[in-house]
């Protein structure tokens, strides 16, 4: 049976990794995720040509794969990984080749939720180091955050209310050959997982290739009791046959509490709050709304052109029947910003149930654009 892979980040490492994965006979499906576009400054560090400058990284790599191996099923997603529905990331292995620490943290969480292995790669150009970390799923094995300390958390990119959006992580500027080295090691570890040479029972580990001294170091990671990611076990996700436009907020709340009163049920999407209103920083105008923050695109005030933003008073981590205005109960999840492949959670007291909206995951095609 063919295996599926998700690759996130198509820069210094990812652009070299994709053709290696595309040539693995055991792989029959690849999901490519990157919000960026190639530009001419990437010519010397990433696998791209001058003619590809200005084009979407995900689309460029998808088209290349189509030429290399036409039978391969490729889906491309050109948006920030934190906004991609969890079901669309589902694969046998997730491969992270990202600069951003926030994106790595998000992918670690996604891999844990889905119960799949994560292979994370990075380079340190000054020291000529290529690093590949393999994180096995399951509650007994270390995750990425088990290896983090406060300094790692302090280095996470952040949004500043004074500045608006979060800055992008700085590019490593590593030479192409170092990125290609990390990609090759990452591909080797991926194939070892797919072929069963490495099993989840082997636990989590890291391979560092020191190209300067021509040495390799392997470190085993152990599960940290102080890990800040509270849930290491995979989510039990029930896959619905309904698309987001076919499910109302009320129906979603009923899914999670069959037969019982739904008044205390809470609807949420992992890590993405609901926006209940936007306020203009220029004129103070308040615009009532109800949608997931991910789906809010209007950022400029119609009256004065000032920046629209949601303050803490306008954010809600979950929706409940007893707090919902009447109208949104009958609204479809799509109109609230939910997408195919989203995994929403219904929480009642301490119990949480997870449901995936139709359209995501292996076996069924996600709505991502075909390359």
């Amino acid at each position, binding site marked *: 049976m063919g295996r599926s892979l998700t690759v996130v980040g198509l820069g210094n490492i990812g652009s070299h990794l994709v053709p290696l994965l595309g040539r693995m006979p055991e792989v029959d499906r690849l999901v490519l995720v990157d919000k960026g576009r190639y530009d001419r400054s990437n010519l010397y560090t990433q696998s791209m040509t001058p003619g590809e400058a200005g084009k979407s990284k995900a689309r460029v790599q998808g088209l290349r794969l189509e030429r290399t191996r036409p039978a391969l099923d490729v889906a491309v997603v050109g948006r920030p990984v934190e906004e991609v529905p969890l079901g669309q990331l589902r694969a046998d292995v997730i491969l992270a080749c990202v600069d951003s620490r926030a994106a790595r943290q998000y992918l670690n969480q996604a891999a844990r939720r889905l119960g799949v292995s994560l292979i994370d790669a990075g380079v340190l150009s000054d020291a000529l180091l290529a690093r590949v970390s393999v994180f096995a799923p399951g509650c007994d094995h270390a995750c990425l955050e088990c290896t983090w300390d406060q300094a790692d958390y302090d280095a996470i990119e952040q*949004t*500043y209310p004074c500045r608006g959006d979060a800055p992008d992580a700085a590019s490593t500027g590593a030479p192409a050959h170092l990125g290609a080295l990390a990609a090759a090691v990452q591909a080797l570890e991926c194939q070892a997982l797919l072929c069963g040479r490495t099993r989840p029972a082997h636990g989590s580990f890291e391979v560092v290739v020191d190209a300067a001294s021509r040495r390799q170091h392997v470190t085993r990671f152990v599960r940290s009791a102080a890990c800040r990611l*509270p849930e290491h076990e995979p989510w039990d996700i029930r896959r619905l046959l309904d698309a987001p436009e076919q499910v109302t907020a009320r129906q979603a709340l009923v899914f999670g509490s069959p037969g019982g009163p739904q008044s205390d049920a809470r609807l949420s999407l992992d890590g993405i709050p609901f926006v209940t209103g936007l306020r*203009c920083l220029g004129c*103070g105008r308040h615009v009532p709304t109800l949608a997931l923050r991910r789906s809010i695109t209007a950022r400029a005030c119609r009256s004065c052109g000032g920046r629209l933003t949601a303050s*803490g008073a306008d954010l809600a981590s979950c929706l409940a029947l007893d707090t919902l205005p009447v109208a949104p109960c009958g609204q479809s999840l799509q109109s609230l910003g939910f997408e195919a492949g989203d995994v929403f959670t219904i929480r009642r007291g301490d119990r949480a149930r997870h449901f995936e909206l139709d359209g995501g995951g292996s076996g069924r095609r996600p709505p991502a654009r075909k390359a």
Partner: protein
Amino acid sequence: MHDKILSAFLTRQFEEGMALARESDLVELVPIGTHPPQRYLARFRCRGLCRSDDGSIAEMDYAEVGICFPDEYLRRTDPYQILMWLGPSNVWHPNISDKAPIVCLGRLGPGTRLVDILYQLFEIVTYKRFATDDALNHDAAAWARQHQDWFPVDPRPLKRRVITLRIEPPPAEGGAR
């Protein structure tokens, strides 16, 4: 609460925050919700600046800020979710919006302690610290650049200074009556 690490963190913040409030004349801390609290109301009794109805800049003597520690606080922070400016609404400060309940402390990393947030808020309110370039209130930033001799508006420390006084009895005088 299921997350023992977050629960221990919140308990520590409660103890440290309340201890600071006890030792300060300038901040009052009101925990909200069940123990360990995830929300606080911080009331500052220090001097700051506000804009009067006639447009002049005047002193104010109180400020209220809501502080929330979401479930993910130890892993990632969203300043919009953590801090909420509650008043006065006519506050005059580059880091505080006068149009929305938003205050910007600059970087607020995951797991930042409650007392650090209180100190930073105090420094903002009293103009010990303010943004001159990236600002939520650009008019206040421009004004502040030209009136730096006004600052800080309140030089008092947040935590009451402890001065140990030892009073010794006067030396005994022989034959004192």
